[in-house]
């Protein structure tokens, strides 16, 4: 029972980490290595709105979501657009960007372990005899909601369909008059906002620290790979796989194998199914 509940929670968290990354990559084939940085940044942003500008919690959350989205868009507009398609450059540029943001925050005094966001609702309840605090339940709820909305969005709105078109086949999309740059821009914005959302849901559980940026990035990448790069529903499923795998390792193997298991999962997955567990069929051709 515990395993089930906390496994779900853990998975939901992972899914939240990964969705933004998966989205950006899925649509515009951009590996956004600044993902973790955006995550942390938005955390501190909310904190700032909340404590320094003494705004209402809800307002500051909204502000953060928007601001992060804008930042993402700007990053694309002024940096990535110039090196679109040069994979290595993309990776390096986004990585450098992330580094700059994180270290910048640190320099700006946002260091140490004293920053945190208040939980939406504190306290805990017993679910099937397992006590869970509300925030964690909320994470699951929000995670589910986000996935649901994303699905609706990509299946029933013009823009969503356009994004999916891009994800399927950029050329074809271009022929149909979908402006690939604009879509990529939108994707970046969305992805960033998703990162912010994840931050806002998960940070109240702990505290806001710069180091988290790196971990988040690695986890996000891990999930996306196992799920098959670019397919964000795959990412969600992968999140559950890894999430439960981790919890199970903690319970039966001991916690310090968590990371080893995760990494092993990635390597094995790639060697066996290069396109990830839920990657698109044609990508299997990637294997010579």
């Amino acid at each position: 029972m515990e395993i089930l509940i906390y496994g779900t929670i853990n998975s939901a968290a992972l899914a939240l980490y990964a969705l933004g990354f998966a989205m950006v990559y899925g649509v515009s084939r951009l590996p956004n290595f600044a993902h973790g940085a955006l995550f942390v940044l938005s955390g501190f942003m909310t904190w700032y709105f909340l404590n320094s500008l003494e705004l209402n919690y809800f307002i500051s959350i909204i502000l953060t979501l928007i601001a992060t989205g804008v930042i993402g868009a700007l990053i694309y507009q002024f940096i990535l657009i110039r090196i679109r398609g040069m994979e290595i450059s993309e990776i390096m540029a986004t990585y450098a960007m992330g580094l700059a943001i994180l270290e910048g925050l640190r320099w700006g005094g946002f260091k140490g372990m004293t920053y945190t966001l208040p939980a939406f609702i504190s306290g805990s309840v017993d679910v099937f005899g397992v006590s869970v605090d509300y925030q964690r339940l909320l994470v699951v709820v929000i995670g589910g909601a986000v996935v649901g909305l994303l699905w609706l969005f990509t299946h029933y709105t013009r823009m969503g369909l356009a994004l999916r078109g891009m994800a399927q086949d950029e050329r074809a999309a271009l022929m149909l008059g979908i402006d690939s740059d604009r879509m990529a821009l939108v994707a970046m914005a969305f992805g960033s906002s998703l990162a912010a959302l994840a931050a806002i849901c998960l940070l109240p559980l702990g505290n806001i620290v710069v180091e988290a940026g790196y971990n988040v990035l690695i986890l996000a990448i891990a999930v996306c790979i196992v799920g098959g790069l670019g397919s964000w529903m795959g990412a969600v499923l992968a999140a559950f796989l890894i999430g439960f795998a981790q919890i199970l390792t903690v319970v039966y193997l001991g916690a310090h194998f968590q990371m080893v298991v995760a990494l092993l999962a990635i390597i094995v997955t790639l060697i066996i199914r290069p396109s990830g567990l839920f990657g698109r069929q044609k990508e299997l051709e990637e294997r010579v």
Partner: protein
Amino acid sequence: MSVKTGQHRQERIDRGIRIRSDGIYALMSWRELSYLTVPRLALIVGMLVLPLVLPGMYWQRVVSIACIYALLAISFDFLAHFVGLVCLGGAFFVGTGGYLAAILNTSFGLPPLVTIPLASILGAALCTLLLLPCLPLRGVYFAIVSLMYPLFAMRVIEALNILGGTDGILGIDSFSSRWVEQYTVIGAVLLFLFGTRRLVNMDIGLVLRGVKDNDQAIRASGMNITRYKTLAVFIASAMGCMGGAILVHIYMWSGISQFALDFSILPIAATVIGGSGTLAGAVIGCLILVPISELLRDFGTLRIVFYAVILMGFIVFRSEGLLVYGQRKYHQFQRWTRL
């Protein structure tokens, strides 16, 4: 390429001397000869003289470190642009080479100048063996797996607490003198640089490039791709391992942090800056990046911010890479022409 007005465009034309000094005709006059040789000589002489002109030991040490990164950068550039394997696992090579050198030195008491080549070869063999299962992977998939390798190695050593665990291995001999150190590492760089340049232009080099451009045709010509990939990985990892071995002897210490991400990332950054596909560019990139990061130390925490910004600037505004840009300016001139 920016356009001035509607009816103008910029065109690039090879310099006359380039054409004249093409192929055998270069022997016609000293001018043509020098046109070809000066750039190469400049690099070689420059690197050889560098240690002599540097202010003090500290900067010599910086150069050594830069050269170690240069080795990694060459190995990355070689794999990525001449074999088509984007390998983000430079740290894995460093770690393997480093630990091997450490063991050879502490357990078997071999002197540095023996352990370094030995560790490079053994290490290369080991890395190649371990990477073998991923060789069929292509593109981003190989990249990611190779990125995972060092992380994995680190965790394993940590979890099993072998090879000195997180404390690492102490008490390794250092070089007999800093000059030996300097010229070993510089020599290694030059050797591998021109070695690989030669290699990629030899027939087998052409085959490797073929593997990158069109592996189907290679197989259609009755050649086993994996075999050539293996060979390439062996060469590349040998460079990385040598870098690691030298590092270990410089600091008389070896530990898991030799699998750290920086050893994978920085060389790539250097390659991108210096110009991908031109092996020399990788070296130049390192000789720029590493000193910059050292100069920035005085800025404390801000250092990395500046560093990242500079890096980004180079990548975004000189995306072709310094050397490529330089070569273009060297070989061609631009002018506006009416359409």
